[in-house]
């Protein structure tokens, strides 16, 4: 490419970008930076599907109080630096009123500085508690998935109920796995459960026999696996092959369609805490958010032909929250007044109480930007290819 061509290309790009930024002042523009490629793509694909569906559903019903919803979707490639770039683009070029970012914890942590400085509310779809804590430094940041501590506590509580005294752990050596281990270590003191051995593996590791045999040798009552498919499947299979006979616990990151499909009958008896959307058809109707979950599942199923993953649920909730907050802000501010609208949105989100959504009932407050409690973790066992809630 000659230099001249390069300059033309740059100018063309700039023009294109400028053009894209000139959305109609009436539209409510939301930016979304999701991992469509890269290691987190299996999580991101569900999120993208949910966001697109939400946008369509809202606009088909006439928009948000007459204003068209426009979700600008960018791919972060699971890379924190790219996530920062994407969010900055969404803020400055597309004038997004709020952003939904990102799929993984490192990415979400990376964009905190940007959204804080720009004064743009961000709803993260990732697990780590440090995304919204300490709240004093997270004025503009919220998240929809329950804190990983909530999910871990539910499992630990179940372990105590099952009479588990010794525990083994194996997880990813990335943010997700390390996060799970950290929360586990925080949750164990006082339960009488002894953590005998911890192992880790890379997401792309193809053979876990070494780690599995070491864990199996320690013969703990239960083993907790903290990964996403297919890693979690491989780990469990390796442990079974190594002769481990105890109780298997998996994590909520496993709940996309791959887990059950790959594991088959060998998964019977596995216990894990899942998000409500996973057991949508066994939720007691007394649960206040049960109808929201079922509506979501029905809509998603009709559009895509398969049940949604929990990640899709997180994204849907982001949509629901932003929609509700927008309705509040529109009463006094126009989407064209970007700065005021962003600020208004933030305040509105923080003020949501008893907000029923797919992941549970959100109770945001100035001290809690996660908003979900223990009702968002449902303990289940795997039986014959389905999840059965534990009584």
């Amino acid at each position: 490419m000659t230099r001249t061509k390069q300059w033309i290309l740059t100018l063309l790009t700039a023009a294109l970008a400028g053009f894209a930024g000139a959305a109609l002042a009436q539209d409510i523009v939301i930016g979304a930076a999701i991992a469509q490629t890269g290691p987190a793509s299996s999580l991101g694909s569900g999120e993208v599907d949910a966001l697109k569906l939400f946008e369509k559903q809202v606009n088909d019903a006439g928009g948000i109080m007459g204003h068209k919803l426009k979700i600008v979707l960018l791919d972060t490639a699971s890379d924190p630096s790219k996530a920062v770039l994407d969010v900055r683009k969404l803020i400055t070029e597309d004038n997004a009123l709020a952003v939904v970012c990102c799929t993984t914890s490192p990415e979400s942590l990376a964009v905190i500085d940007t959204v804080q400085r720009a004064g743009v509310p961000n709803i993260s779809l990732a697990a780590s508690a440090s995304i919204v804590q300490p709240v004093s430094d997270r004025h503009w940041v919220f998240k929809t998935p329950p804190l990983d501590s909530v999910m871990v506590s539910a499992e630990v509580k179940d372990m105590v109920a099952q009479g588990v005294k010794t525990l083994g752990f194996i997880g990813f050596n990335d943010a997700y796995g390390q996060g799970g281990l950290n929360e586990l270590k925080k949750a164990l003191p006082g339960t009488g459960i002894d953590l005998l051995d911890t192992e880790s593996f890379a997401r792309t590791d193809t053979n876990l026999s070494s780690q599995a045999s070491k864990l199996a040798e320690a013969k703990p009552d239960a083993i907790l696996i903290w990964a996403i498919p297919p890693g979690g499947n491989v780990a469990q299979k390796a442990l079974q092959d190594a002769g481990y006979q105890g109780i298997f616990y998996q994590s909520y990151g496993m709940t996309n369609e791959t887990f059950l499909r790959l594991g088959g009958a060998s998964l019977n008896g596995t216990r894990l805490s899942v998000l409500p959307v996973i057991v949508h058809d066994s939720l007691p109707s007394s649960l206040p958010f049960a109808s929201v979950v079922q509506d979501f599942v029905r809509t998603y199923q009709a559009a895509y032909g398969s049940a949604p993953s929990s990640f899709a649920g997180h994204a849907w909730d982001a949509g629901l929250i932003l929609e509700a907050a927008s309705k509040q802000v529109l009463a006094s501010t126009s989407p064209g007044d970007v700065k005021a609208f962003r600020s208004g949105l933030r305040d509105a989100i923080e003020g949501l109480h008893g907000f029923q959504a797919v992941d549970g009932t959100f109770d945001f407050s100035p001290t809690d930007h996660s908003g979900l409690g223990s009702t968002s973790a449902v303990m289940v066992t795997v039986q014959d290819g389905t999840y059965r809630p534990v009584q």
Partner: protein
Amino acid sequence: MTTGTALFLLVTGLTNGAIYALLGLGLVLIYNVTRVINIAQGEFVMLGALTAVGLTTGEATGGITLAILAGAAWALLALLRRRRWSLLWLPVVGGALLWWGVDAIGPFHLPPVLGVLVATVAVAFVGAALYRLTIQPAAGAGEVVFLVITTGLYLGLQGLGLLFWGPGSFSFPSVHGGQIAAGGVRVSYQSLFVLVATFAVLALLWLFFERTLFGKALRAAAMNRLGARLVGISPERAGLVAFAISAGISALAGVLIAPVTYATYDMGLGLGLKGFVGAVIGGLSGYPGAVLGGLAIGVLEAFAAYTTSAYGEAIVYALIIPILLLRVVATRRGAAT
């Protein structure tokens, strides 16, 4: 660590190592004939595994689509250059019509063996086509150029993998489920099969290179391009065959490993890397060396992961440097010049 555990780790390591060995064989083959370090070697493994899965479960026939597209591009290129390969368009178009016609009728559900065969052939074809489209035009460029080209191939192929099969994982039926207990160590039938298959491939390669005329011609082309040309051996054809065989071997490796570790669109790079390591440690010139190197890396990995899973991989890679240094020193000691 008990003896039982040590034995178990050894077997595990050898099984994994066999896959790395297969990849290493493919790498060395390509390097010997074309002087290209193929960063995208692992992607052939991915394509082989996922195509076989798609053919047997009818879920996604991406690999065949890719083969047809690659063939079409190749045919187009040949047409533009008016070479003999322009006859390629006939089977490509015919195959495409047949494919989409049958696909319209219903999803494919080939028996596993046939699925493996078709997948291997398809991926081998893709390998040859990619050579023709991306490597051959750059003949004579420095080795670093090829490094970047194959990097581009790796990115493109992985992207296509994601496009065709999505980010999910897929399993493939084992040759025979279950394990046998030998000497207190549990070994799965699949692991045994992998080992046997690796050595079978090695033996076949040896026969090919030592006993057949074409195999010898390939070796000649590797040693001296100009000389080979002078005796009528075409380096281009040699490159085509090398890429085809190498891709085929890798596809086979993918099918062998899929039952154990599940196939995903991004399984390629890690495997390719380990295969590369094994091949270089083995000297990057000899086939037995590549196999031994691959096996060694597999065993090293198994023991390192057992000792400390957090740093296991780091230990394996860190050990490469002293091994390489030792190799160089040893070579220098016996140096003639």
